[in-house]
């Protein structure tokens, strides 16, 4: 395909403009975390030319070169929140992927009948959970969790996060399993494997990339979740978004600190996006195409 020059310029112009829109906030935050008070209020943009970068924001977080080996309370606090988020989101994603893959496999291979519910109804039952806004569950669960002593615990958070991502896993995995030819399992069954045996030995390795992309999508959603965490956690299981949000609302916080901490919250997922983009795209695209 050959294109004339003005059209090419237009296409690249729009793409570069949008890239700028997408990346500028990250650039701005990254530079702000190295600014001093004076350069923040002047709205300076380019380090080394407009202003001299300093480790200001990272120093207060205890992550700058000169403070990294010293005691630092903010760093302890930050790392505790970081690991809370990591534990909760990865366990919830893993649990959702396990439950969801089993359910999706069952739905794609067997005909079920639970009372009036048949396979399409059961599918709908699972997927309809996607529509449920978290606020509907939030208050009743808050009361229930209080009675069950699950408020502010990892287990409680993992359970509710699993629920929020389970329908997405089922949606993605159903397509994945439908794409696997049934003959493969039939061959395994003829060779004497059980239903579960053929699932683990034959089907599971084939759909592993699909499982990976479902897992990554879940991880992203759980990592960034704020609303439910803000209601349910307070100290022990507090996640990073809640910590960052509470810092935002406190007036005394300094810009460079805030910039450093917001960036630290996003950084793991930016890395994930750069290296695992293929899986993320695959997971989302599974929702759109193929039937």
């Amino acid at each position, binding site marked *: *395909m050959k294109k004339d020059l003005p059209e090419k310029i237009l296409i690249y112009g*729009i*793409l570069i403009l*949008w890239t700028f829109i*997408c*990346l500028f*906030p*990250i650039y701005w935050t990254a530079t702000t975390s190295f600014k001093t008070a004076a350069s923040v*209020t*002047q709205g300076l943009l380019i380090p080394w030319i407009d202003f001299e970068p300093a480790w200001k924001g990272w120093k207060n977080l205890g992550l700058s070169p000169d403070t990294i080996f010293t005691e630092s309370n903010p760093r302890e606090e930050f790392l505790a929140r970081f690991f809370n988020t990591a534990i909760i989101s990865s366990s919830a994603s893993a649990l959702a992927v396990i439950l969801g893959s*089993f*359910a999706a*496999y*069952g739905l794609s*291979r*067997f*005909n079920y009948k639970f009372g009036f519910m048949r396979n*399409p109804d059961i599918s*709908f*039952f699972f*997927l309809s*959970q996607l*529509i449920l*806004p*978290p*606020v*509907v569950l*939030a*208050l009743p*669960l808050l*009361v*229930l969790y209080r009675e069950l002593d699950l408020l502010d615990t990892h287990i409680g958070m993992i359970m509710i996060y*699993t*629920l929020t991502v*389970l329908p997405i896993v089922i949606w993605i995995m159903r397509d994945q399993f439908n794409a696997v030819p049934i003959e493969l399992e039939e061959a395994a069954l003829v060779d004497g494997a059980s*239903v*579960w045996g053929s699932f683990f030995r034959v089907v599971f390795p084939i759909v592993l990339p699909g499982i990976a992309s479902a897992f990554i999508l879940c991880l*992203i959603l759980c990592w*960034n979740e*704020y*609303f439910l965490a803000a209601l349910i956690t307070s100290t022990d299981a507090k996640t990073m978004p809640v910590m*960052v*949000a509470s810092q*935002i609302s406190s007036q005394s916080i300094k810009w460079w600190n*805030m*910039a450093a901490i*917001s*960036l630290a919250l*996003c950084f793991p*997922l930016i890395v*994930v*996006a750069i290296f695992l*983009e293929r899986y993320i*795209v695959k997971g*989302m*695209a599974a*929702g*759109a*195409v*193929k039937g």
Partner: protein
Amino acid sequence: MNEIKIIERDPLYVVSKSSVNPKTIRAGKLIVWSSFLLMVFIGLIQALYTFEKINFGFSNWRPLLYSYILWAIAIGYSRVLIYGERGKRNLFIFPAVMFIISIVIFPILFGLYISFSDWNLSSIDGRKFNGLDNFYQMIADPYYWNALKNMIYYILAVLVEFAIAFLLAILLNTQIRGRKFFRIAFLIPLMLSPVAVSWMVGKSMLEQRFGPVASFARWLGWETPTFFSNPEIARLTMMCMDAWTFIPLMIIMLLAGLQALPKEVLEAAKVDGANKWTMFKNIIFPIMLPVSLTTLVIRIIFKLKLADIIIIVTAGGPGGATDSVTSFIVREYRDRSNVGYGTLLSFVYLVIIIIFMTILIRFVSRWLQREA
């Protein structure tokens, strides 16, 4: 005459022994009922203890949870004991179904119970049944209706987002250099936590005095750029921030659809001399319709949950102009700490959503290529 019986055959047909030992059937029923009784027993003790009829019990309801989990496992295991091979198949979907029932259906029923009450969680009085008072209060609550009205604006904004995403997806699908770079760059806003976006964009870039966007607006000739004091502009700003995070999702879904377009049709149209616009209008858009509608429905589902950035950046202000239903309910709950009223509001919202989504899906399902 022999009646013809249609046997529904599983896609994956498993030949298995059909008879099950009656002993194992009895064992299966036994474990289900015994664990059920254990659960009832623990629940009863705890209920009596809570209402101070007896003076021994557990410090919280957690033992009931454990016995519930035990019961659930017993049901699962009994499927295998009672139904044999068929039961093993049920085990594939049983955990997920059980999980959702326990953590959705049960809280929803419980929510119905608390939505007709005045319940301040921090006061000692506990729950007070107040009938339909919450409902009347809701009818007379202008801010709730205002939040619902805002949701309509927010949802209409999806159409604009869709147009932008479609354009970018088409551009990404053309022959360009560095497509992988652009794809990653376009994906990144979706990776950012709404909380971080609230600060990075809402609080810092849109800062009135020295935020870069404000400086840019001044350079364009807007003398006093304020993004959150005028109701209309504040709502527009929130729409833009939300769009910024979610356009990547739409781009990816639409791009997947564009890449699956049948090449032959496009080639044939080109040979016939169709120009770009007619090709888009008559070929690409109609073939893309199912993907487009799926994308829109999914985006609307996410939009209905919109809350985080509003809670953090504007807290609904000015005067409720940016409130989404979720952010409003959270504020209600924090201000009055009445769980009952908040729950009722969220349930009314749920009913509205279900009606809206049912109509929407019914309306678009003609063009959708897949069910649900």
